[in-house]
């Protein structure tokens, strides 16, 4: 490496007197020696091809790993759900100001909520209505409600806290008028207190 640097410097001094070239791009001062293409074992563009193929393989591999992660372990939606879980889901959903639909409660709204939360964090708020749901205050009482709402049975405490933290929408906008949500939040605690014994019993049931 030192040799090539010295060669570069020595070429520089000899280049000073060289005439100006016709090249459009030429305005530098170093010259590397002539490259000989004799006796190449592999194709001359092998580094180019190998690099791009390797890059494509890496990105595709990464994509497949991510999609495999999405597919493994997704539990099948149990239709015979406990009514307590539905009720908690309702209260969770109602925190975000959506209307309650008890008959379709879990799969559709839960899916939309999860999608909204997911997009909230990964895609930085896809649509404005979801943006509105994300613009919530991170008040402690909403924290508690969400903790009760999202059951994660049989999990250690730290993961529960982690999920709880994840569930809290965080794109707080101080200019946003969220009177509706505030009213909902204020009115929510009694529901939480009621669900507490239910959730604990169902927690034991699901274990």
């Amino acid at each position, binding site marked *: 490496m030192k040799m*090539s*640097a010295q060669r*570069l410097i020595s070429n520089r001094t000899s280049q000073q007197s060289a005439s100006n070239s016709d*090249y*459009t*791009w*030429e*305005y*530098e*001062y170093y*010259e*590397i*020696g*002539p*490259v000989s*293409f*004799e006796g*190449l074992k*592999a194709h*001359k*563009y*092998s*580094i180019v091809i190998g*690099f791009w193929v390797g890059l494509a393989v890496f*990105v595709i591999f*990464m*994509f497949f790993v*991510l*999609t495999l*992660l*999405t597919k493994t372990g*997704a*539990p099948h*939606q149990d239709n015979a759900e406990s009514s307590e879980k539905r009720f908690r889901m309702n209260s969770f959903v109602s925190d975000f100001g959506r209307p309650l639909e008890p008959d379709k409660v879990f*799969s559709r709204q*839960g*899916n939309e*909520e*999860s*999608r909204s*939360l*997911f*997009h909230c*964090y*990964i*895609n*930085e*708020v*896809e649509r*404005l209505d979801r*943006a509105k749901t994300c613009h919530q205050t*991170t008040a402690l009482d909403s*924290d508690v409600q969400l903790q009760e709402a*999202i059951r994660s049975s049989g999990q250690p405490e730290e993961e529960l806290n982690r*999920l709880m*933290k*994840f569930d809290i929408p*965080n*794109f707080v906008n101080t*200019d946003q008028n969220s009177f509706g949500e505030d009213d909902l939040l204020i009115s929510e605690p009694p529901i939480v207190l009621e669900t507490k014994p239910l959730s604990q019993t169902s927690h034991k049931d699901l274990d």
Partner: protein
Amino acid sequence: MKHIINSYENINDTARNNSDCPRVVLPEEIFFTISIAGVLENLIVLLAVFKNKNLQAPMYFFICSLAISDMLGSLYKILENILIILRNTGYLKPRGSFETTADDIIDSLFVLSLLGSIFSLSVIAADRYITIFHALRYHSIVTVRRTVVVLAVIWTFCTASGIAIVIFSHHVPTVITFTSLFPLMLVFILCLYVHMFLLARSHTRKISTLPRTNMKGAITLTILLGVFIFCWAPFVLHVLLMTFCPSNPYCACYMSLFQVNGMLIMCNAVIDPFIYAFRSPELRDAFTKMVFCS
């Protein structure tokens, strides 16, 4: 850096073998168009954030930092083209002192843009990470004041590094430091995003069974990381090959594609607003308001 970037271009053609790899030359109009598109897009992002009070939040400041570094990269290409035109039409004395100084300044602009991009992307990923994993304390961790301080430190460091790298570009440790930033940052971002993705996956697993949401997250992540890798890796490899095997025929064939690699960096500046800034509906609304109401 110029000698690393451009030294292959000064090779006397007659000294080359006939079977060598001819330099792939892209018309300058393509570079000009892409650079101007990059400058305009990122300028729009900056204006939208500047004019809209709602968007003056830490998250958007980081996106602005990315827009600034992309804009600097496109500006570098425009200035370089202008210098070349001036030189070819004879207004500029070739290899004069003005030209060498201008070269060095433009080179440091390029390195500054590159480092700025790298650090902006890292800091955006870190901000999203804090949003998810420390959600309750987000507003006490990421305040506007701290954001400004972090961005000031990053840009000062990038400016100083840019100048130092251009001055000391002949030395190999400089090149190694410069090129090692790319994989380090890639690993950092990869870890952050995969961790976020895993948490999102475990969350949605509890709520719903549809894998469609996670599929969309996987696609988003792949796009984010894939665009970055595809646009920056070719150039980084070029710098490495130029330093360590300039006279190897295989390396020379790779380096003949330099203009394609440079164009990929310009394309990155054009694509970045779409995958970072315009994903936010607030910014999109601010943009449409700005364009259609003015």
